[in-house]
Every structure is written in structure tokens, then in C-alpha cells.
């Protein structure tokens, strides 16, 4: 009987021990689950940032390599740049960005028609400005090439050409941004487009001087040691 009682009590004790063990196991597993959940949340946030940075780095690497390869393979093509200048119809461009013209259209067309026409005008003007920017880049490269001429006059004119071309390029970038805004929001009363034509005029004058000096007797303009 005593043995039986002891057996039962042993059994109860062992049951109690087992249940305690189960409880402690459960609490451990709960703890481990909660422990695992907290860093997992942090890891996923960190992982998103890490992979985003990896993506940014790869895009940047691709751009760097592309620009580097293009820079190497691109000779200075004067005839092509001249062709780019020729292709721009300055009167048409003036008309497209003319504020009076815009006011006239706004007054005489229905709002819907005005938006449609204005979008088309802005887009066409954007294409003109983009082309002008490309021509300005070519002009800058020619100016920089001339800047290294042994003739001080040619070098000075080259410096002026390059300086004007840089200004022109920045103005075309600004104009492109303004015109793109006008394409998206045609109703917006835009500010005047930067004085691109005046800048062209200055560039042309300096380039003409450069050409005159060059024709007068300078044998050749030395190209820079570009990459």
C-alpha cells in the first residue's frame, strides 16, 4: 500500500516534473519565438536598405562605365555639330516660346483646346532646346580644343567660345526643365525662357573671331589630351 502510494506519488511527481518541463519548454520556445521575431523585423528593414543601396551602386557603376566608354569613343565632329546648328529654325523656336503668342492662344481658345495646343508647343520647343544643348556641347569641346592653341589669340577666343558654350548649355538645361513642366502643366503661367538666342549670338561672335584668327595663319588647333 505504501509502495502503491509511493508509486502513485512518484508518478504524480514525475507527471508534475514533466508538465513543468513542458511549461518551461513552452516558455523557452515562446521566448525564442519572440526573440526571433524582433531581430527578424530589424533584419528585413536593414535588408531592404542594403539591397536598395546595392541597386543604386550598380546603376551608378553602369552610368560611370557608359559615360567613360562614350567619352573615349567620341571624336570631335565639327561638321556634325554645324549640321545640328543648321537644323534649328530660330524663328520657329522664338515663336514657340513667345509669351504674347501664348497669351493670344489663351484668350482665343477654349481651355481644353489651349491645353492641347500648349502641350504640343512646349514639346516642340523642348526638342529645339535639347538640340541646341547638343550643339552647345559640341561648341564647348571645340572651344576647349582651341584653348590649347600655341597662338594666344586663338587660345583666348577658344576660351571665350568654351565659356559661352557652357553658359548656353546650362541655359538649355534650365529651359528644358521649364518646358517639360509646361508639357505636364500647360495651364501654368510659365516664366520666360532663358535668353538662349542672345547666348547663341555671343557664341557665334567669339567663334567667328576664332575662325578668323585660325584662317589668318595659324596652321592648326591642337586637340587636348582628352581621355
Amino acid at each position, binding site marked *: 500500500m505504501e509502495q502503491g502510494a509511493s508509486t502513485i506519488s512518484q508518478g504524480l511527481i514525475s507527471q508534475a516534473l514533466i508538465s513543468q518541463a513542458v511549461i518551461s519548454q513552452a516558455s523557452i520556445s515562446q521566448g525564442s519565438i519572440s526573440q526571433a521575431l524582433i531581430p527578424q523585423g530589424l*533584419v528585413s*528593414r536593414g535588408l531592404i*536598405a542594403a539591397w536598395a543601396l546595392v541597386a543604386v551602386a550598380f546603376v551608378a*557603376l553602369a552610368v560611370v562605365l557608359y*559615360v567613360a566608354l562614350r567619352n573615349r569613343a567620341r571624336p570631335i565632329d565639327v561638321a556634325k555639330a*554645324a549640321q545640328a546648328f543648321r537644323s534649328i529654325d530660330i524663328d520657329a523656336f522664338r515663336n514657340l516660346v513667345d509669351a504674347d503668342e501664348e497669351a493670344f492662344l489663351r484668350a482665343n481658345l477654349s481651355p481644353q483646346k489651349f491645353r492641347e495646343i500648349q502641350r504640343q508647343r512646349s514639346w516642340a520647343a523642348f526638342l529645339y532646346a535639347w538640340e541646341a544643348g547638343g550643339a552647345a*556641347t559640341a561648341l564647348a569641346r571645340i572651344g576647349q580644343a582651341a584653348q590649347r592653341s600655341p597662338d594666344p589669340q586663338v587660345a583666348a577666343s577658344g576660351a571665350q567660345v568654351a565659356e559661352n558654350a557652357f553658359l548656353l548649355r546650362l541655359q538649355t538645361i534650365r529651359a528644358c526643365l521649364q518646358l517639360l513642366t509646361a508639357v505636364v502643366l500647360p495651364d501654368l503661367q510659365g516664366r520666360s525662357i532663358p535668353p538662349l538666342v542672345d547666348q547663341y549670338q555671343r557664341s557665334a561672335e567669339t567663334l567667328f573671331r576664332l575662325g578668323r584668327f585660325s584662317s589668318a595663319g595659324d596652321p592648326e588647333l591642337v*586637340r587636348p589630351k*582628352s581621355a
Partner: protein
Amino acid sequence: MLGANWHNVLVLFLWVTPHVLLAVAAAVIWNRRLYREYPCFFAYVLFRIATFILLFTLYCMESEKGLDYKHAFAVTLLCIIALSFGVIDEVSRHLFRESRFLKVSARRLLQCVAGLLLPVGVVLAVYAPGNNTIWWQACISAINRGAAMVQCGLLLSLFLLSRFLGLSWRRLAFGITLGFGILACVDLAASALRTEFTSNAARDLLNLLTMSTYLVCVLIWLRYLVASEAEAAPPPVLPPNNEVEIWNKALQQFLKD
């Protein structure tokens, strides 16, 4: 066992070779007196070699737990980051050297880019500090990641500006910038992954990636250092007089009202 040996040999090769090549580059810079034009780059090359000698010695001595090595690595890394910014400033000055207008406006633009990217780096350090439990290593890692991001942005801006404005690079400045650009991009990706993947295998893989990239960049610098000497002799002619006349006519036609 063989795999482990191969790994060790590869790591040793990728660790030693770039610095031997950098020593050659330093000799070329010294011989051609290029340190007058590129003092920061010269200082960077010398510091990289000195760092290698220091770290390699500490590594061979194998101090307990490698703490000396880790501390030395952290301090030299900070110095290398500072020198890298100096080199980027140097190449940007070379790029804008011929234009009074760009000297001011383009450099201001670069300062704006750095000013925009710096807070992003700080936010990232706070938002995603990584899994490193040792605080100073986590700090160094965050600084490295932020610096790589700013450098990446600056070098990308330099390349894009040169492309959009039609700026002509000097050969060596271009080579230096290209090398730094590749290094900064890979460094950014590796440092971002390093903060999250802290296992030994991931660490080894990322180390191999950054060391290989570093070797490629050193080869680019050396190539441009040697090539600029070899190719400087016959300058090509541009533009011939008749082409300038074509330009003038085109511009006059363009401007006629």
C-alpha cells in the same frame, strides 16, 4: 583543405599585388613629377602602400584576437576615406580648371550634391545600423557606407557634368576618376551588404569582391599613368581651318533674322 589553401593564396595574391603595382605607380608619379599636379593622389597612393605594410605586419604577427589589426584597420580606413575626398576634389579642380564660370558654379553644384547625400548617409546609419554588435565597428561600417555613398554621388556627378557640358578630361585625371568611380560603386554595394550579412562565408566573399575591384582600379590607374606618357607625343589636329569656316557659316545662317 585544398579549397581553404586556394582561398588563402587568392586572398594573399589580391592583397599583395595591388600594393606592388601601387609602388610602381608611385615611382612613375615621382619620375614624371606628377605629384605637382596631383599631390593628393600621390599622398593617397603612398598612404595605401604604408597602410598595407602596417596591416600586413600586424597580420603576420597575429596578436591575440587580432585587436591591434582591427584598430589599425579602422584608423587607416578613416584616413583613406579623407584622402579619397581630397583626390575627388583634386580631379574636379582639374576638370573645371579652364573655365572661370565652372570653377564657381560646377563646384558649388558638387557641394550641393555632397550636402544632399550626407544626410541620407546619416539617416541610413540610424535607420539601418546593421547587425554588428561591437559599437565602434558598427560606427566604422556606417561611416564607410556613408562615405562610399557620397563619393559615388560626387564621381557620378563629375562624369555626368563632363558629358552634359562637353568638358574635356585630362588623360590621367580621367583614369583616376574612373578608378575611383568603380571603387566607390563596388564599395557602396559591399559595405551595404556587409552590414547585413555578417557570416564568415559572406564576409570572405565580399572581401574577395572588394579586393578584386581594388586590383582592377589600380591597373586602371597604372595604365593611364603609363599611357599618358606614351601617347602624349603626337597631338591630333582639330579643327582644320575649312571646318571652322563651315562652323562660322552655319552659325551665321542660324542667327540670321
